[in-house]
């Protein structure tokens, strides 16, 4: 930034002597320099200067002012009243007052008036206006550092012991220029953690720490170099460094719009990236494969999958504005290509010539035109030529075998399919419909792309057709449909296993689409070309068999040694991940809005080295990691000199301390707890799986809670660097979250192993596993003290705390059941709260009917279990499917009967006296968070007409909806006897006699009647019947809400854990603290 010397920037406060100023030229210039220039600089240049020129106006030379901006001339020398500048500072027009937010003082205004009046003298006769060429570029534009060819750099000479290799000579020179000195070398312990986290993203094991320390004490250089080689040879390396690339290419596995559909085949690209790193695939090849493998290696699945890069962007499955949609897709593809490979934030040039970089709007569209014929096929199988041929053959055979049935089936389906297609297509704008109905051969490439966008929606609708339902109404058709599908199913074995679908990109036609760019209302066709600034000839494009060949030309340009951007950009990324900051700190923007390189010569030297080494990354890792620069300690506080000279540590006067990133944290916790399971690629896993984070499913709209919380990027655009945030919700997750607690628990069990107490050895072991170092004696002491006092605090686990203090287990009836007149309710309802003291109510001393009975209840449900547990309102069952019992409840989120299905579970005897377990599902949905009446009339004895069957008649009514009807469903089952429940099994409300499966909600009325009630006898119909139990919770005391009931508050059964609760609890807490601590989360 250009700044005036500070002495000129002071505000004008002195009173003004007009007489003196109006005199000679010299005096005029003195007046200008002492009063006017500082005033303009302080008040105007920020918005009207070389950096910004709001309203097209600059105020840093008289010529600019007289020329004026968008609204005309700003100053007429000598004419105060006609000068817009004066009018603006006088604030004559409220819409045109300057400066906008701050009124100038009267003195300042007077000074300006005086100056204009004297003819606005300005000493520099000519403005330093930069000459521009026919493209509008200045000489300075051509000097843009990033666009220059790599400089021929010789390694600086430097004496002394510090340097280990060439890298250090560059960094040492910069440091000494600024009179800074490097930090001491890191200790073996600091070094080994750094190297492991850096190359593998994982902490070293205690054994790895020890072996390194031994080697390091003998020969540190050798120890480092050997360890780096070992780690580079392991496939854990690709899992770590592949992740960096996945960030850059906005990798995610879902669509990212409303439906956020999961993309099951995307992970193959992730594996491709990991393998490419592990193989040290030359980066130029890596570039070519991702941009154009379909053009030069269409039959090599291992390369072809690289083109997934171009389709990782987001997609909206039901967007009808097809033109806009394609435009968005293409724009996204162009921007990510520019950022990922070229380090150019070219997005700005989409709408106008780039304001800061010499990139023209035309350049943007020329670049886009390389990509403009692409398409994302949905039906390409991924396989080698042989595999595909074999598959094709088998498929043909299968088709032949099934032909008689298949053809008939398809004929049956045809009318519906046609109407479905029409229904979808007509939702698109008329012009797009026309294109869709054209013959494919008549469509241009662009039209084909639009038609394919429509086709995707057509296909989706077709997949959704429920054929069984379609034919349901026509008995004949429905029978025939069943027969045909059965016949086809018989031949299923002959059907070849589908090849994986290729999540790839290719061109829609060999003839390119036209890219237009609009300038001043004119539409101009643009041909593929490279950045105008570079002055390179237009590319030679040779069409391939099914493609335009354009992307090959683009890939070759990017992957060319002489490309100044791509080559520096990738080397900068390598440096960046080793030092947490690139030589250019804005890795996706080498333009003028980005920052300039701290070590430009080093960057060019390293890049040359990289190219000469065949574009391979591993040699560069070695070079960097064996340097003295990399080996500095991070554990050194800045001196006051460093704070002032280089507060951001860009010159590397120490190794930068930093927090671990999301994947490192999650993986390190799994390593410490001993749970991490390695795998070599494959489909993505749930975040709860004990695999490395790079394999965790990445949905755009639903972040994994752990990874998302630690700033894993969301996958909507290229993310060149991670941010590291610290938030209280993150802390809550660490100290209270289930996942973190589970890791601490596993860590504790690992430590305890066969121990009977938490001793010093356990503490030392914990430090080694969590921090990779020995515990100091005072740390051991403090830890032991904590373990002891914590064991006392754990004691026997306290009963769960009430969620709300003062809670009694009863709530006023009106809270949930207000306004319900029929059936009659009491004053209170029972609040069943899992995890509280009011979790399960035991009912005692009642004779239980065993063959036929009716349960009725009025209740609501606040939440259902996230897993497949059953939300049990009442049960007389211990959950075993061998011991008699029953339970009355509704299903949870992951139930295979669908959530909120009102069910009975029965364990009894079938007609042959075998003990069987059966879920009797009503398929009636319980209304969540609404009061409802529901009843089950259970008959567990043989039906008269069919001795093999019993029945349950279900009733359900939503009481929140006055118009709701009583729903009824009779379901037959096979439990026809033996429902006599053992005495030791308790009769519970809110649960069955087994941990889990709790009801979360309120219960207003609960009855049990012997025998099967008829519909008119039900409570809801005002019916009368002798009820064995009839609770309406009118009691005063929530502790005993009805006679002969009591909250079940047994001392928890001794857990299956072999450890005493206090020991395990205290050790878990100790581990939990270690895993949440800064020493664990930071490399500092």
């Amino acid at each position, binding site marked *: 930034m250009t700044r005036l010397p500070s002495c000129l920037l002071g505000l004008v406060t002195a009173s003004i002597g007009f007489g003196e100023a109006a005199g000679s030229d010299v005096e005029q210039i003195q007046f200008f320099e002492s009063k006017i220039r500082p005033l303009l600089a302080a008040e105007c240049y920020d918005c009207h200067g070389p950096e910004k020129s709001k309203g097209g106006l600059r105020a840093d030379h008289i010529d600019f002012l007289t020329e004026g901006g968008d609204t005309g001339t700003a100053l007429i020398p000598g004419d105060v009243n006609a000068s817009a500048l004066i009018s603006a500072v006088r604030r004559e027009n409220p819409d045109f007052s300057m400066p906008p*937010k701050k009124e100038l003082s009267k003195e300042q205004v007077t000074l300006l008036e005086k100056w204009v009046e004297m003819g606005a003298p300005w000493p520099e006769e000519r403005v330093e206006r930069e000459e521009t060429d026919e493209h509008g570029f200045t000489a300075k534009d051509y000097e843009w550092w990033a666009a220059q060819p790599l400089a021929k750099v010789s390694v600086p000479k430097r004496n002394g012991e510090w340097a280990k290799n060439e890298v250090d000579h560059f960094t040492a020179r910069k440091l000494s220029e600024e009179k800074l000195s490097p930090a001491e070398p890191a200790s073996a312990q600091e070094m080994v953690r750094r190297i492991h986290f850096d190359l593998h993203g994982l902490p070293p094991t205690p054994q790895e720490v020890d072996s390194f320390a031994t080697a390091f004490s003998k020969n540190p250089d050798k120890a480092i170099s050997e360890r780096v080689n070992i780690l580079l040879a392991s496939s854990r390396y690709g899992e770590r460094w592949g992740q960096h690339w996945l960030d850059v290419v906005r990798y995610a596995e879902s669509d*990212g*719009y*409303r439906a956020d559909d999961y993309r099951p085949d995307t992970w193959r690209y992730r594996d491709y990236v990991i393998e490419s790193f592990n193989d040290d695939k030359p980066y130029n090849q890596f570039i070519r494969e991702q941009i154009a493998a379909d053009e030069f290696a269409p039959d090599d699945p291992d390369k072809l999958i690289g083109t997934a890069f171009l389709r990782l962007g987001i997609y*909206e499955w039901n*967007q*009808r*504005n097809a033109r806009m949609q394609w435009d*968005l897709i293409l724009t*996204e593809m162009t921007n990510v290509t520019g*950022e990922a490979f070229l380090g150019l*934030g070219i997005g700005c040039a989409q709408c106008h010539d780039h304001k800061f970089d010499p990139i023209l709007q035309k350049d943007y569209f020329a670049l886009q035109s390389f990509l403009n014929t692409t398409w994302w096929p949905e039906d390409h199988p991924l396989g080698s030529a042989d595999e595909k041929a074999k598959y094709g053959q088998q498929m043909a055979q299968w088709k032949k075998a099934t032909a008689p049935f298949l053809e008939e089936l398809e004929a049956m389906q045809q009318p519906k399919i046609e109407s479905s297609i029409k229904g979808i297509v007509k*939702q*698109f*704008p*008329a012009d797009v419909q026309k294109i869709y109905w054209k013959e494919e051969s008549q469509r241009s490439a662009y039209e084909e792309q639009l038609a394919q966008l429509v086709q995707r929606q057509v296909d989706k609708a077709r997949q959704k057709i429920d054929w069984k339902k379609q034919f349901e109404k026509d008995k004949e058709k429905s029978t025939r449909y069943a027969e045909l599908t059965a016949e086809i199913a018989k031949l299923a074995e002959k059907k070849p296993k589908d090849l994986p679908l290729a999540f790839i990109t290719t061109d829609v036609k060999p003839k390119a689409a036209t890219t237009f760019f609009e300038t001043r209302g004119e539409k101009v066709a643009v041909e593929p070309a490279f950045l105008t600034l570079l002055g390179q000839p237009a590319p030679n494009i040779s069409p391939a068999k099914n493609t335009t060949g354009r992307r090959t030309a683009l890939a070759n340009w990017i992957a060319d040694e002489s490309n100044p951007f791509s080559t520096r950009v990738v080397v900068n990324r390598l440096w960046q991940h080793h030092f947490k900051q690139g030589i250019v700190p*804005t890795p*996706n*923007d080498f333009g003028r*809005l980005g920052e300039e390189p701290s070590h430009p010569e080093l960057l060019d030297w390293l890049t040359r080295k990289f190219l000469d080494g065949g574009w391979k990354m591993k040699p560069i890792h070695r070079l960097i990691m064996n340097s003295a620069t990399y080996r500095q300690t991070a*554990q050194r*506080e800045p001196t006051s000199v460093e704070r002032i000279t280089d507060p951001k540590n860009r010159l590397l006067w120490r190794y930068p*301390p930093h927090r671990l990133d999301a994947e490192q944290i999650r993986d390190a916790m799994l390593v410490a707890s001993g749970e991490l399971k390695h795998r070599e690629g494959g489909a993505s896993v749930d975040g709860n799986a004990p695999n490395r984070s790079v394999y965790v499913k990445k949905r755009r*709209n*639903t972040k994994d809670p752990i990874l998302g919380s630690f*700033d894993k990027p*969301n996958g*909507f*655009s*290229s993310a060149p660097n991670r941010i*590291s*945030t*610290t938030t*209280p*919700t*993150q*802390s*809550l997750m660490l100290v*209270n979250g289930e996942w973190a607690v589970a890791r601490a628990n596993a860590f504790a069990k690992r430590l305890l192993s066969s121990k009977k107490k938490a001793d010093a050895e356990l503490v030392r072991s914990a430090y080694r596993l969590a921090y990779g170092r020995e515990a100091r004696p005072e*740390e051991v002491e403090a830890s032991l003290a*904590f373990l002891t006092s*914590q064991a006392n*605090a*754990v004691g026997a686990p306290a009963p769960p705390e009430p*969620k709300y203090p003062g809670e009694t287990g009863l709530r006023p009836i009106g809270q949930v059941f*207000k306004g319900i007149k029929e059936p009659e309710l009491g004053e209170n309802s029972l609040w069943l709260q899992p995890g509280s003291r009011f979790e399960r109510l035991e009912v005692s001393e009642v004779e239980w009917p065993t063959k036929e009975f009716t349960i009725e209840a009025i209740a609501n449900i*606040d*939440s259902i279990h996230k897993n497949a547990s059953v939300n049990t309102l009442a049960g007389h069952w211990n959950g075993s499917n061998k011991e008699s019992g029953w339970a009355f409840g509704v299903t949870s989120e992951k139930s295979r009967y669908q959530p909120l299905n009102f069910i009975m579970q029965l364990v009894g005897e079938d007609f042959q006296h075998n003990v069987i377990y059966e879920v009797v599902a009503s398929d009636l949905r319980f209304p*969540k*968070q609404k009061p409802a009446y529901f009843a089950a009339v259970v008959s567990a004895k043989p039906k008269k007409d069919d001795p093999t069957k019993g029945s349950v008649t279900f009733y359900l009514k939503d009481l*929140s909806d006055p118009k709701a009807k009583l729903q009824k469903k009779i379901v037959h089952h096979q439990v026809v006897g033996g429902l006599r429940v053992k005495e030791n099994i308790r009769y519970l409300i809110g649960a069955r006699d087994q941990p889990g499966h709790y009801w979360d909600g309120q219960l207003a009325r609960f009855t049990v009647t012997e025998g099967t009630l008829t519909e008119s006898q039900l409570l809801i119909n005002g019916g009368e019947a002798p009820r064995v139990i009839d609770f309406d919770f009118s009691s005063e005391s929530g502790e005993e809400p009805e006679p002969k009931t009591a909250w079940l508050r047994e001392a928890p059964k001794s857990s299956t854990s072999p450890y005493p609760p206090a020991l395990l*609890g205290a050790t878990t*807490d*100790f581990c939990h*603290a*270690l895993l949440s*601590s*800064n020493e664990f989360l*930071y490399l*500092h």
Partner: protein
Amino acid sequence: MSCNRIEQPHSRREFLGKAGVGFGAVALSALTGENLLGATKAPNPVAAKIPHQLGKAKNVIWLFMEGGPSHLDLFDPKPLLNKLAGQSLPESFERPVTAMGEVNSPLLASKREWAQHGESGLWISDWLPQHSKIADDLCVIRSCQSDGINHAGGVCQMNTGSVFGGRPSLGSWISYGLGTENQSLPAFVVIKDSNAMVVNGARTWGSGFIPAVHQGVLLENGAEPIKNLHNPGGVSDKRQEQKLGFLQQLNENHFDSRTSNTELEARIRSYELAFRMQAEAPEAIDLESEPEHIKKLYGLDQKETQIYGRQCLMARRLVERGVRFIQLYHGAGSKWDSHSKMEENHSRLCRNVDVPIVGLIQDLKQRGLLDDTLIIWGGEFGRTPMSEKGDGRDHNPTGFTMWMAGGGAKGGQTIGATDELGLFAVEDKLHVHDIHSTVMAMMGLDHTEVVYMHKGRPERIDLNEGRVHEPVFKDT
């Protein structure tokens, strides 16, 4: 280049020295409500910052009617629509691209009774009978425009300015620009009316590329409103406190020789904040202590209104506690979306919100909070004059209504207009970018100055395209 406006935490070592023994004392003072930061400068990145200029509003409550309410049946009467009902859109009208392709379907009459209300004579339909009481507080903007023809793009743009995901939401920008006034609650809170998810999931209130501390925090239904707010199962307060004390001790020892690393310090602090949040958040949203007449005002006594009433009442409690930005989703999961049976659907939804919204505004007013609190009402778009499936309307992002009240908004006025059928905004058009810029201005922020450098580009809420529409809050 200018840097991002993230305040680096200042040293708190002196404070810890005073507090004595680390977490125990800190936690205790948190529990007793003493201001922990009284003695020191606020090192919180979202601590309240000074607005760029004096704006009136301090807080925002955004009543988000998700799915797209029909402006044609609520705030923007169109007599011509009823005259032409049954016919196609006249030839003179441009054909927009619609979500379901209903461009040429017959025009659908509005069945509403319309009347003018308040001294200002604001038009409000009979679907919102209670709103007559607040007519003079409402600044109805009939000329809103968005680019999202679908819910995903529409909700995304209404929140972040772009139909394309990944950018920070308005609440995040405001948290970034203004910080928070309550150190124990998030600056940006989101509440929704059911367990259904808002379109696009949590990224709707995400912070995009700005630090996560500014993202919205969803208050869940049920006993644990903020994720991980309670001690892990079976862990007593004493045990938790001792554990956190030990953790704090580990962190203090580690920090001792690394005091220049402000991130380490920030994390030590964040555990304290988490602990305070754990203590204070449940109280902030516990409505039981509210007197009956207040509950009634918000409709908590009626089944149809109690859900949104609870949200509105909660919002008032949060505003009182200094939460900066609150979004109340009604109809989460696009329930206002009325492609068919609009009569049934909208009647019910309007009944759900009519009393609670009016209650909220009246309550804020009687407490003197309305001047500080900007209320925004609207969905991601409006609905078409053309029918769909005979009795519904399609999405209309080209012209629809939102309103603002409080926070300096000039009540009792109508801004802008749609064409004679309510399809396109034609007068004083306010694109979403302009709405965002205007809201920022009302919060005292210059939308061109609240800038975050991202990938070398200066990013703003309005994608460099918005302008402040001053008549919303200034006499003209």
